[in-house]
């Protein structure tokens, strides 16, 4: 479904439109929120935050007579703002200072100074992970990007957790060999 079709559906049949919007942007929103809150907020906080993002978007769509513009950019903006809100809420409970402004990114020093070389290496890494094929590439991404346990990954790829552990260790071994072959090094 294109954004234009979805924009129409959101006004013509809001419930179906909302579901379509959710299905299309769930991964994107979740990943934005997760990337902002990783290591800081709990899984429950992240889920709540993702829920907040979609609720806010649904409400926004309700209020518009006509939905236009770049939905993806709008959604990303709401996701980033809500992640900031969640960060602040969590910070309140962990006595951490809340000094970030709404548009301020949670960018670590490491990200700020990320060199082109690092970026290229990361693309190479992603390419190689993709070459592993499914479900191994998903297992690796879930483990190393989203930090999930074998039990959690098992639910995503419909395998037992033992199976996930076995596949994961084999995939890492294969990945290592493949990366070695393409000269991946840091």
């Amino acid at each position, binding site marked *: 479904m294109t954004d234009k079709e979805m924009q129409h559906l959101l006004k013509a049949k809001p419930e179906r439109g*909302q*579901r379509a919007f*959710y299905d299309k942007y*769930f*991964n*994107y929103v*979740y*990943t*934005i929120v997760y*990337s*902002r809150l990783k290591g800081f907020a709990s899984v429950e906080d992240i*889920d*709540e935050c*993702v*829920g*907040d*993002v*979609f*609720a*806010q978007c*649904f*409400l926004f769509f*309700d209020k518009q007579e006509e939905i236009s513009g770049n939905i993806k950019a709008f959604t990303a903006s709401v996701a980033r*703002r809500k992640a900031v*809100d969640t960060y602040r809420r969590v*910070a*309140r*409970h962990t*006595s*951490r*200072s*809340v000094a970030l402004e*709404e548009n301020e*990114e949670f960018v670590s020093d490491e*990200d700020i100074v*990320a060199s082109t070389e*690092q970026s290229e*290496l*990361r693309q190479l*890494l*992603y390419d190689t*992970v*993709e070459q592993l094929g499914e479900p191994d*590439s*998903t297992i*690796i*991404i*879930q483990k*190393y*990007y*989203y930090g999930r*346990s074998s*039990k*959690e990954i098992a*639910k*995503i790829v419909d395998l037992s957790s033992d199976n996930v552990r076995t596949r994961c260790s084999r995939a*890492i071994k294969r*990945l290592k060999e493949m990366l070695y072959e393409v000269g*991946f090094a*840091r």
Partner: protein
Amino acid sequence: MRDDLDMMFSRIDKDIERISDKYPAAGRKEKERIYKLSQQKYQQLKAREEADEGFTVEASGVERYRRPMLYRGISAVAAALVLVSGLAGGLLLTKNSRIPKVDINDRNNTSQSTMVNEIDEDKMNADVDVLADNFEHIMRALYIPNDVSENMYDDLGVIFTKNDLMPTTGEMYSKELIYYKVKDEKLNAPEKLEEFMEASFTPKLKAYYFGGDLSGHENGEDFADDSMAARYVRRFIIYNGEVLADYIDDDMYFSYKFDEVYDFSNYKLVSSKFDDNIETFEGDLGLNDVFLQYDESDMQCVVCRRVYKREDDTLVNADFLLKKDGDNWKIANYSIMDENRKKLKESRKENEVQPTTAYGNDDNADFADVQLHEENLFSNIDEAIEFENGIREAMYNGEYKFKKVDIDKYENQIWNAKDNNEMNTLENKSYIYHLLINSYRYFDTADVSYTKNIDHVYGNAVSSVRCLADTRNRIFYLDSDFSDINDYPEHEEYHDHAKLYSYDNIWINANEDTKTFLQSEYEDYDYDNIYVPDNYCISKYYDENGEIIYNSTLTNIVFAGKCSECLFNHNVIGLDNFDDWYIEDVVKVLGRRCVSIRLENENGYISEIIDLRTGIILESLSIDENENTTVYMKVNSISIDTPLDYQYFDPTAYTDDSAVTE
């Protein structure tokens, strides 16, 4: 290699796009769960927006205010807290509300006042005009934090937490104090606030409202263990050179808004009288009444009783306790009431709620009939809140009296039911519902041991509990041994062995692993005379899609929340909808006649085995949508109404770790 793979994580936009395009961010079930969550939040946002339409207050014709969304969220949370704590706070407030009627029959005389010894009436009235205006400014800053803001955090100053006692249970809970920047130009700088407070309030009342400079404390700081700081955490504080206020959190709890209570400048003054009999004055500041009324006793006192008329011609009684501090009169306490001299914060606008069943408190009288169950469904949030406030008020005033129903009759009726239909009559189900809500009223002592297994996403937890409870003499003991075994990388195995004691109006929570204890006092309640009829316990509002928007419970249960799986269950929200549960069968457990009930919910179902004479839960089972058991509680031994082997705490070898609070 591991380090190389860790490089996979990135916050760069193009990496996020790539990952989210190619891979699922969560499993199907998690995705569906979050979708439901999104829909719930969306419906709540919509309902709040609709409920708040028109909630705007013109402030002296200059500023326009709107409550930020956060306020509403917090109000909802506060409403949940009211489940138990509301009883306590409300009781404390109402305990002193026996106010003698005062004649206000001179409503049409706008300037009449009564002379009190040696008081210059005209000058006093002029002084009170200024004081009332100042008071209005101060209260406005507390009620309405800021002007319209798209981002609710724009004017957020600082958030502290501190522990507060939940008097009905003795539990300490963490109370969040959210301070917003004060915008009122008369109050928005530290020196202005200091001066304003000084001119308006006696030193005691000023100290009650104004805490001082808390800049040295970090955002989010928990004052639970900092007795010095806790003394200064007040309604107004200075923080990093700014004046901040935490606002009154009564949007859901009380019926009246600022413009109905303190908006004097928009009311017409009807009369103003002075009298020096402070014995009849009862202030609005709850526990601090006595403190504020009689302290500073060397100061000359007078009560100014004013009657104001709102735009809609209704009246507001504003009594100010004034004390002479040096050459100036200042407010020492106040009481704001409606035209019948009922305190506004405890009132609701219409009291149309009357009990449908007579309840007597006489042990020699006949049994009460079971109140046949009816759901309290409302068409909007306001009605639900109004209803609940009316019930609360009636409850505090002792209008409902508890009387036992005939348990022999119902036990036999259910036990001997011929079939499932006969078992599941409205009367029988209402009896089970009644027993569950009022369980503790049907036994004097209990000695139970039970185990509880919880299968959670990362492993499982097991607890073994023994509980002794004397509901009449308020003596309680609980020994709980809890272990959590899990495989989640960030969670270590957890073990906790704790003992909880209560007697002589104290709670003692002893940690057997660290050999520390926390002790707190609580005020006991007249549970016999503060009672909610079964059908008034829960008020709900569903939106047009059938989603619950407001769901509030009002109960009054001794030891609420303690040993709640078994003895003092106070959560009957799921059972309120009789379509969602039914009596499965009758069964004997540990020699006692019980019913087995099954409650369906969206995640599976819950099955409970309930003692037919006491409402004590002897077994409970939670089954998820995949038919897996997630929680299983089973009572292994039980002894009811037999002499108890009372347990008292011996502090030898323990360290007192009690939180110091106000």
